[in-house]
């Protein structure tokens, strides 16, 4: 169970990292996710059926996601549509596009060689999945780590943090936001491409609930791993995706039917949103109590010194 959720989690990790980029770096809740995830899957599976190699098809899936992000980015920055609505518009439009690409609502892969097919054949399916996941995650994290160490990455972070200040320092903030949407949705589509190959099919409904999965992974990750270092933050996303898969697997093994997964996802998200808030409140209260106790002790100290001073005086 742990092994299979580890593999699955790694394949979902690019989604978590993608959501992290819009949600945490740019501070935008981007609903394009629900469209770009199946978009990546649809493009990849269709290309594979047309005879393209799994590697080419997966890269195409990633790029397709970038295009989806580009559209939301333009809607948001150039047409000034609120980001939440911009995402919904792209997501809605992508539904039709995905239907056109796939031709029907569910397209199975038949004999095509998927990405795990390139790995040693003597491994078990679970091990193959884990290996593929590790390779993909390492590539994604390495590229992003490098990106966030460059001036470009710094400009991206600054834009998400303070748009006015960024513009005043010469950063093309609209361009940065579009760029952020693009890599975010590219990664989300990459996740879709990987999951489709893992499942053996692309489905029109596979994007439903992905934003909740992504957000939950981000928040779960941040509960376990905190820090300002970008490498730690990215690792937290991978860990979050794995832990989240594990939680779902546990729920399934407790006997919840597959149809209940969505509501479980939603409940998990609510819990992980509330946990850090409560954690914080308890921590602050404890710190405050400690501080006040200390103050009181000091006060007592000063009172005794005062009384002793008085006693000295009275002796005179």
């Amino acid at each position, binding site marked *: 169970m742990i092994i299979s959720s580890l593999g699955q989690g790694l394949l979902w990790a690019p989604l978590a990292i993608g959501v992290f980029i819009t949600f945490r770096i740019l501070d935008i809740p981007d609903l394009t996710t629900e469209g770009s995830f199946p978009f990546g899957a649809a493009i990849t599976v269709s290309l594979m059926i047309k005879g393209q190699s799994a590697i080419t098809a997966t890269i195409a899936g990633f790029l397709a996601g970038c295009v989806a992000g580009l559209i939301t980015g333009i809607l948001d920055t150039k047409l000034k549509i609120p980001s939440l609505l911009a995402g919904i518009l792209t997501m809605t439009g992508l539904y039709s596009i995905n239907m056109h690409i796939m031709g029907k609502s569910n397209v199975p892969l038949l004999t095509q060689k998927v990405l795990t097919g390139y790995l040693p054949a003597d491994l078990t399916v679970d091990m193959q999945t884990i290996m593929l996941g590790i390779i993909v995650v390492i590539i994604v994290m390495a590229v992003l780590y490098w990106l966030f*160490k*460059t*001036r*470009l990455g*710094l*400009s991206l*972070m*600054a834009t998400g*943090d*303070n748009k*006015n*200040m*960024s*513009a*005043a*320092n*010469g*950063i*093309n*903030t609209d*361009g940065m936001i579009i760029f952020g949407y693009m890599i975010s949705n590219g990664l989300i589509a990459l996740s879709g491409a990987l999951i489709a190959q893992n499942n053996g099919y692309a489905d029109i409904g596979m994007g439903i609930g992905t934003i909740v999965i992504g957000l939950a992974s981000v928040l779960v990750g941040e509960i376990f791993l905190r820090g*300002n270092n970008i490498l730690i933050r990215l690792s937290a996303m991978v860990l979050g995706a794995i832990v989240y898969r594990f939680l779902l697997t546990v729920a399934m093994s407790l006997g919840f039917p597959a149809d209940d997964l969505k509501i479980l996802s939603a409940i998990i998200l609510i819990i992980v949103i509330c946990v850090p808030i409560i954690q914080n409140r308890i921590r602050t209260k404890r710190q405050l109590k400690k501080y006040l106790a200390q103050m009181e002790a000091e006060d007592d100290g000063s009172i005794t010194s005062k009384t002793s001073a008085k006693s000295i005086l009275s002796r005179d």
Partner: protein
Amino acid sequence: MEVLQVKHLQKVFFPGTRNERHVLKNINLNVYEGDFISVIGNNGAGKSTLMNAIAGTLSADAGEIDLVKHNVSKKSVAYRSQWMSRVFQDPKMGTAGDLTVMQNLVLAQSHTKTISLKWYQKKAEEEKYLALLKTLNMGLENFLNTQVKYLSGGQRQALSLLMATLSKPKLLLLDEHTAALDPKTSQEVMSITDNIVKEQQLTTMMITHKMSDALKYGNRLIMVQDGQIKLDVSGAQKDNLDKSELLQAFE
């Protein structure tokens, strides 16, 4: 040489409605190299609007703005920033709180290499920044890798000021940059400002509500009233101004 030329600038808010307000009425202004201008005026006189129009956060309805002989009237804030820096009234506005002091300084270092793919963290730069931070006398040199949100308002504003001058701008805009600080810190930041401006011979426009600062600093004084420049004095004429005369002009 003119660093900034403002020609026939007009701005009307809410045109055609009951709330129509003509905020900038045909403003003409030349700012010359080496000027340190204090801009004063009532609330709503239009000085902030003028500053925003020059900086590019607000587009003027008519007229032209030339920055170092480039017509920037229709250009973005980012484009104008290659010649211009700005310090805002709110210390939070001028710095990115989640980024470290170092990262903020890197951002301010060059306004034209914002999408460079080179790594930004360099040892030599770090030492240069430390030396610069030390000159502020605010203890900032101990916080190079601290997130800016943990700094005090005064420290943040001093950092904003350092950032704004790091790129050696042709024009420095100070938008009531000491107004949000307590009197003592405000004075400290003001004297740091004066030092930097003098040292680097920066052409500066400073909006202020403090009459004493307006009189004490700079070589030129502009009073904006009712969307027009009512008073523009420089040199000896400005030195001879006193508070009561200035208050009279406000009437």
